[in-house]
């Protein structure tokens, strides 16, 4: 992870760490904080705790997002302090708008068309939301511009050494974000033999041809989760509300759990009961026949 971040994440980059609740690469976010990246434009539908930490650590110049809260808990306090104190630029869409931006980027189109925003104040708050006239019906439809990040980091259940990556459970916009990106870092729970990938090719979401680096980092998504590997750490999400309310407490958290560890393995060693508490149960599906 250290090498991948050192090599592929640069000061001033447009950075995406995607994953909708599921498969958020906290490990990558922490490494970016440890390596003191600055002036990043962080993009994500739901900034979640990881961007709250990165904002608090001073990595972010700008945030591009559609829902900035602590899901199921309340506010992201570092984010709120930064916005209310006007120390962070923001560019705001709805979820569909962000999904559409990634879709356009992935298809290498300059914009995406959607039926949205009529009657809302969002286009006034964000002039990049524009419109286009349908050449068939004459209707006016909303548009958003393509989002093509410099680097996208995707956590996944498994990949082979080349980077052919398989995901199950919630898929979010992982595929679109990866295809839209100049560089892609895939972080996986498990490195598997190419034969495992080839045995079930319909589960491959991201092909090796677009992947810059594969990092093996078990538990790399905690406190987010990886279906089939470990559960979401809801206690942590609830606890973050207290930690993040005061800058000083948040700072102590970063000192201990981010700056204070070298990597994810040390992070897990510090919390020996985590794995036991969150380890996934077994609910395995049957395979299907790919024969002919």
């Amino acid at each position, binding site marked *: 992870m250290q090498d991948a971040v050192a090599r592929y994440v640069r000061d001033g980059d447009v950075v995406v760490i995607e994953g909708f*609740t599921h498969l958020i690469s906290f490990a990558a976010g922490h490494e970016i904080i440890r390596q003191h990246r600055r002036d990043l434009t962080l993009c994500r539908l739901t900034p979640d705790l990881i961007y709250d930490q990165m904002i608090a650590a001073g990595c972010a110049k700008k945030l591009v997002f559609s829902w900035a809260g602590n*899901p199921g808990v309340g506010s992201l306090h570092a984010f709120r302090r930064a916005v209310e104190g006007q120390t962070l630029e923001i560019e705001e869409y709805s979820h569909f708008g962000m999904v559409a931006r990634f879709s356009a980027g992935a298809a290498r189109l300059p914009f995406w068309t959607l039926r949205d925003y009529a*009657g809302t104040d969002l286009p006034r708050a964000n002039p990049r939301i524009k419109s286009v006239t349908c050449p068939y019906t004459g209707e006016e439809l909303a548009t958003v511009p393509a989002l093509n990040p410099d680097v996208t980091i995707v956590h996944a259940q498994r990949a082979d050494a080349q980077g052919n990556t398989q995901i199950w459970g*919630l898929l*979010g*916009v992982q595929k679109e974000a990866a295809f839209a990106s100049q560089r892609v870092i895939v972080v996986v729970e498990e490195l598997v033999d190419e034969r495992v990938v080839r045995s079930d090719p319909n589960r491959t979401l991201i092909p090796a041809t677009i992947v810059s680096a594969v990092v093996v980092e078990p538990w790399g998504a905690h406190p987010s989760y990886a279906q089939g590997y470990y559960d979401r750490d809801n206690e942590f*999400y609830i606890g973050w509300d207290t930690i993040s309310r005061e800058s000083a407490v948040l700072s102590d958290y970063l000192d201990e759990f981010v700056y204070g560890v070298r990597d994810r393995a040390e992070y897990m060693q510090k919390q020996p009961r985590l794995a036991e508490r969150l380890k996934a149960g077994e609910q395995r599906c049957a395979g299907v026949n790919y024969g002919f």
Partner: protein
Amino acid sequence: MMAVVAARELADGEVVFVGIGLPNLACNLARRTHAPNLVLIYESGAVGATPSRLPVSIGDPALVTGSLMVCGMADVFQLFLQNGRIEVGFLGGAQVDRHGNINTTVIGPYARPKVRLPGSGGAAEIAIHAHRILIVSKLSPRAFPERVDFLTSPGQRVAKVITDKGVLERDEASGDLVLAGLYPGIDATEVRAGVGWKLESRARLNQLDPPTTTELHLLREVLDPQRLYLKS
């Protein structure tokens, strides 16, 4: 009571776009009472979920395990929502105004917010595309101003606003929310006190039935035994 009233609004077989908290409770209550074939769709991509525990987030892994379909979010927004396949959408918000418009973005001016809220998430497009919007929100003059500070989700498709004291409906003629039903033991003036504009009433007000013992049992003992969402 809010969860019970919301549950009763759902017809069997409907396709519902559902968030976390009370709407989720309401949907699961409806599924266990009069609407066993309700199809729950979460913006995270889980379709036909039957969660084995109360989901804490709309991305909870329990929504995935045993659901009918899991798809990417581009499909959720394009193939389900924009396509018009969602019949009912639940929304909440920091502010709901007299037209049913919702604000989940900022209190105060956008450029210099007094309070920065999470933002739209999927709320803008849910309000635009779901056939019927149900709002669940507690009454207070702050939460129900005459005009929202920021219009996140337009109110045209709002069918009902389910509050802690009674139910408001959108009057088609005026476009305004009006008082339509009262909970047991509540007076219309109590509802009016929680609304920041002069609230009109339907000619005939519904008196809503209290929760049945079955409903209460399901909510308190089965669906939310730890009272994560049943605070009132």
